[in-house]
């Protein structure tokens, strides 16, 4: 909300410097975003009201005239001017040599085509009052020559720009901000702007138009007045200046009045050319399905019954609260104006705005929910300006249709509760002053909420907020809570996730964060068959782009994208992991969202062995066992693809998948639910491995090539019994010494008993059992 300071001062007077006021407002809930300067930067005394005494043709230039202008000095000044929209007698704005113009140039006495010019007559644009530059600005003839221009027009304006929170549509108005200023500075607020003009004529509004509301749920109030003999034309400079300073454009006096009332009071109004209203009747109704309207911006819009329209007998003349129809627009030919001051339902307007993709100054106010009691205030101000600025005759009578209007809540406020919640003491007097300035009335120990706050303020805590914010939350002391019972800590899943992160960092991998969104093409890039469950992704109904339409069902593809980026940047080795949620459709209230850990190695040294080593180190550090068994995954190398744990995966990336990600280097990945890394309740218990030394033996057995290491170790473990404390494969040999299709696996065996030193005989007996079992069950033979 942009608030010109001169406008603000019309409603509340203050001596506080603008910067300081801005700070105070920021600290009480109306956040100042910026203060900007418009118009004359300095030296306002050189800008004067002038009256053109004579105007003659320049001797050497067709487009220039030579004028004498009275600026209140003893002698008139000679000024050469290029505009043609004035004659002798015109009251104009003059700037004298030496002055700095709003665009920064300094005006000098000059000769124009040989004729001296001792000043300049100004256009509105030159003063930054509006975009108008067709000719010079003409002032009302009442202004006295020599008067400083700043007394007549806001030629030097400071504009305060505020961020207004969505609960405070009342502050989307200069008067609303003035009310905040009044409370913050404890200064008097002027009465509601506008005074009722006298109606004239023997006719009445009923002779001109009839109206009815067919959708009262969407339009709690609809009021209108009729203005006859309207002269549509430009607005006076002061009005243009205020609109432009507040960030709007000047269109014509009638439209500008409507916008001015909105900026002043926060109530959007709308002007119709009544002569264009078919049947001279207004129906506030739901649009018919498929009904179309061309709005003022030239767009044809298709409506539906959830959109409210202001229609005449035949068709919509406005989409309520959003924009008028092109055909009903006020134009230069308009002489009779129907001025609408209504109240439209917030959610209805918001829904229409979203559905039609149309947001306007009006709709952004309506959608926050406006006070229906604003209607008469807006009507008064608009009527006054219509009569004063458009020469209009106010037709007697007002249409004002409404049902029960919302009542004003009566809310208690206990001082001790206020002090309890805020942690600060307040006097009854201070409470009364703050609430009084904001428009609350004390009624029998309770507070009657002003109509413009009734939607947002109806509980004690709301009043607590009002008092606390205006009195100043910066005064609140700093205390620590007493919570003796609270014990800090990490939930088990949070602690596990940290542990996993730390372990993987220790293996040399770096932690990544990749987006949760993915695209339709992902399933194809991963070569997932049609029935693969990972194709069943949670779909976003309103994605920003097609590449973000789905939520991930696997984490590792994000790491591939990061790998590509780093490889392209010249890295020879990229090793990353991520912990994060996947979203899996389920029949429950919300999708299943397990936290996963995915790890990836790419480039130098990447391969099955490296990624498996990382998975093993992780499992060992976490004290869990993660079996690995061959299992084909469509996106992994078919010979180097495995299941990790119960539901995880591990392997080298399929070359076609790597290609789809633009990666030429070797890549291997694993991914598993964090839940599988939970050790459960058991902590590791001490085993005595020190007192009685172990016996170490190595064996090498030659086996068929398709006997896996795991099955060998299983047979060894089974045969050895409890004296075997560990068995690890440490070497693999394939070659002529063991024969085609066979290989030799070398295994470290460690035998140990917890209660005695093993004898060689004991160890040898176990070893023989192992050799026998390997031979019998796997066809393996001891390698010489």
């Amino acid at each position, binding site marked *: 909300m942009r608030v010109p300071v001169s406008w603000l001062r019309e409603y509340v007077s203050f001596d506080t410097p603008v910067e300081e006021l801005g700070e105070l407002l920021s600290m009480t809930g109306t956040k100042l975003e910026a203060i900007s300067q418009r118009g004359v930067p300095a030296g306002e005394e050189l800008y004067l009201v002038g009256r053109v005494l004579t105007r003659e043709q320049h001797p050497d230039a067709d487009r220039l005239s030579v004028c004498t202008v009275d600026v209140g000095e003893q002698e008139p000044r000679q000024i050469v001017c290029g505009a043609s929209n004035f004659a002798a007698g015109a009251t104009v704005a003059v700037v004298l040599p030496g002055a700095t113009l709003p665009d920064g140039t300094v005006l000098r006495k000059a000769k124009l085509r040989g004729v001296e010019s001792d000043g300049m007559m100004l256009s509105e644009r030159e003063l930054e009052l509006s975009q108008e530059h067709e000719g010079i600005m003409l002032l009302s003839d009442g202004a006295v020559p020599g008067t400083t221009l700043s007394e007549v027009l806001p030629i030097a304006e400071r504009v305060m720009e505020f961020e207004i929170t969505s609960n405070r549509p009342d502050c989307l108005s200069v008067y609303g901000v003035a009310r905040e200023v009044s409370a913050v500075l404890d200064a008097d607020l002027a009465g509601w702007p506008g005074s009722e003009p006298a109606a004239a004529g023997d006719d009445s509004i009923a002779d001109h138009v009839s109206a009815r509301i067919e959708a009262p749920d969407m339009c709690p109030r609809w009021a209108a007045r009729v203005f006859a003999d309207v002269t549509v034309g430009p607005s006076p400079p002061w009005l243009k200046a205020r609109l432009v300073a507040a960030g709007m454009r000047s269109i014509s006096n009638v439209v500008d009045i409507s916008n001015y009332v909105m900026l002043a009071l926060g109530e959007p109004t709308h002007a119709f050319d009544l002569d264009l209203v078919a049947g001279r009747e207004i129906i506030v109704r739901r649009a018919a399905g498929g009904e179309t309207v061309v709005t003022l911006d030239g767009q044809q819009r298709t409506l539906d019954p959830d959109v409210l329209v202001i229609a005449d007998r035949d068709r919509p003349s406005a989409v309520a609260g959003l924009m008028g129809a092109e055909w009903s627009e006020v134009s230069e030919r308009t002489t009779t104006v129907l001025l609408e001051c209504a109240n439209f339902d917030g959610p209805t307007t918001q829904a229409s705005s979203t559905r039609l993709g149309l947001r306007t100054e009006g709709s952004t106010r309506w959608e926050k929910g406006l006070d229906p009691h604003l209607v008469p205030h807006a009507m008064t101000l608009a009527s006054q300006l219509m009569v004063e600025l458009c020469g209009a005759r106010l037709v007697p009578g007002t249409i004002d249709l409404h049902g029960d209007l919302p009542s004003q809540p009566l809310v208690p406020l206990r001082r001790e509760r206020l002090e309890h919640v805020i942690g600060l003491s307040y006097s009854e007097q201070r409470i009364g002053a703050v609430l009084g300035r904001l428009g609350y009335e004390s009624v029998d120990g309770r507070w009657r909420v002003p109509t413009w706050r009734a939607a947002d303020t109806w509980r004690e805590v709301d009043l607590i907020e009002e008092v606390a914010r205006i009195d100043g939350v910066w005064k609140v002391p700093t*205390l620590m809570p007493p919570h003796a019972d609270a014990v800090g800590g990490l939930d088990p899943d949070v602690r596990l996730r940290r542990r996993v992160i730390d372990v993987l960092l220790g293996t040399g991998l*770096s932690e990544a964060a990749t987006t949760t969104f993915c695209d339709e093409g992902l399933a194809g890039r991963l070569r997932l068959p049609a029935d693969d469950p990972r194709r069943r992704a949670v779909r976003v109904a309103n994605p920003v782009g097609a590449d973000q339409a789905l939520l991930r069902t696997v984490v590792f593809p994000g790491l591939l994208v990061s790998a590509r980026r780093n490889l392209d940047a010249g890295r020879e080795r990229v*090793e990353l992991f991520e912990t994060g949620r996947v979203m899996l459709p389920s029949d429950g209230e919300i999708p299943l969202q397990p936290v996963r850990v995915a790890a990836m190695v790419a480039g130098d040294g990447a391969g099955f062995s490296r990624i498996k080593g990382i998975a093993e180190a992780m499992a060992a550090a976490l004290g869990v066992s993660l079996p690995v068994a061959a299992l084909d995954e469509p996106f992994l190398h078919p010979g180097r693809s495995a299941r990790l744990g119960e539901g995880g995966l591990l392997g080298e990336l399929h070359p076609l998948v790597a290609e789809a990600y633009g990666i030429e280097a070797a890549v291997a990945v694993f991914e598993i639910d964090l839940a599988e890394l939970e050790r459960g309740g058991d902590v590791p218990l001490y085993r005595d491995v020190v007192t009685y030394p172990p016996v170490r033996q190595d064996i090498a057995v030659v086996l068929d090539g398709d006997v896996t290491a795991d099955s060998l170790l299983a047979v060894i473990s089974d045969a050895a019994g409890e004296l075997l404390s560990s068995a690890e494969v440490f070497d693999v040999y394939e070659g002529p010494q063991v024969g085609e299709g066979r290989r030799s696996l070398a295994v470290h065996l460690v035998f140990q008993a917890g209660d005695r030193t093993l004898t060689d005989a004991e160890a040898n007996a176990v070893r023989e059992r192992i050799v026998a079992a390997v031979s019998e069950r796997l066809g393996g033979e001891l390698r010489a």
Partner: protein
Amino acid sequence: MDPDTVRSEGLTAIAAAGDTTQLEQARIALLGRKAPLVLALRELGDLPPDQRGARGKVLNEVRQALEAALAAREAELRAAELDARLRRDRLDVTLPGQPVRRGHAHLIEQTGRDILDVFVGLGYRVSDGPEVDTVHNTFDALNTPVTHPSRQWTDTFYVSPELVLRTHTSTMQIRTMQAHPPPVYMATMGRCYRRDTPDNTHTAVFTQLEGLAVDRGLSLAHLKGTLLSFARELFGADREVRLRPHYFPFTEPSVEVDVSCFNCARDGSPCRVCRGEGWVEILGAGMVDPALFDHVEGYDAELLTGYAWGMGVERIAALRHAIPDIRMLWENDLRVMEQFG
């Protein structure tokens, strides 16, 4: 054989030995099996008994003197040789060590832990929860009016009319109160989603960190004290915090919280962090709106008060580390990530 000559020549030869090899040669020459002194000692038995004692004494004295000199010289030479060897082994200690591959924790995780650890110290329990959540937990139970802009399809990702990608971690306020009776001191960190147009301070996916305290006797002053402790832990012991009224549907009163700038002298001169204002907005907070207690069992709005706060982890990280564009945190460029330890 003249013992005095043997002694003096022997001592000279020992002194002249330049290394342990030469010394060994000298030892063999003086005290080896064929050395004149050793032969003379062996021949002592052939002398008449009356000469034997005096001669033996003289010869043994010479032998002892030579042995002592040899030992001394040997120690000397070994020390010199060790010294020379160590001098040869000297390294350029400024050369780099053997490289150790080391992972880099993501800055979001680092920053999040730094913050969460402060609150763990203050007695908060850290919990985690789902990112796709119900409209009820995200908006309705958090007292968000149906017209609130955050609910709009332009602002929030919807999965269905009842399910959204949570726009804030405040969903965990409801989930925590539903799961635990009061008092509650909870902190949480996780991904949130908003339909923002990405720019250097916004991404559609971002990380929020939030806390909730509900207990008897809590006031805005306790919130301020808590956040001051946090600000000082994270941004330095001299920090102050400032509360500014704001509006959030789920807190009343609501405040935005500024921390005094940690990057400049706060004298109004240009500063990348506070832009010369002296204060930096770091989070939103407020007293829990009593309407929230209506959505959970066992929470009496008259007996209990509470407060909550939430902050963007990327924003805090960007402020602390002078990161110009938070989108970088989601690109995982190792050149960037390695800067942060």
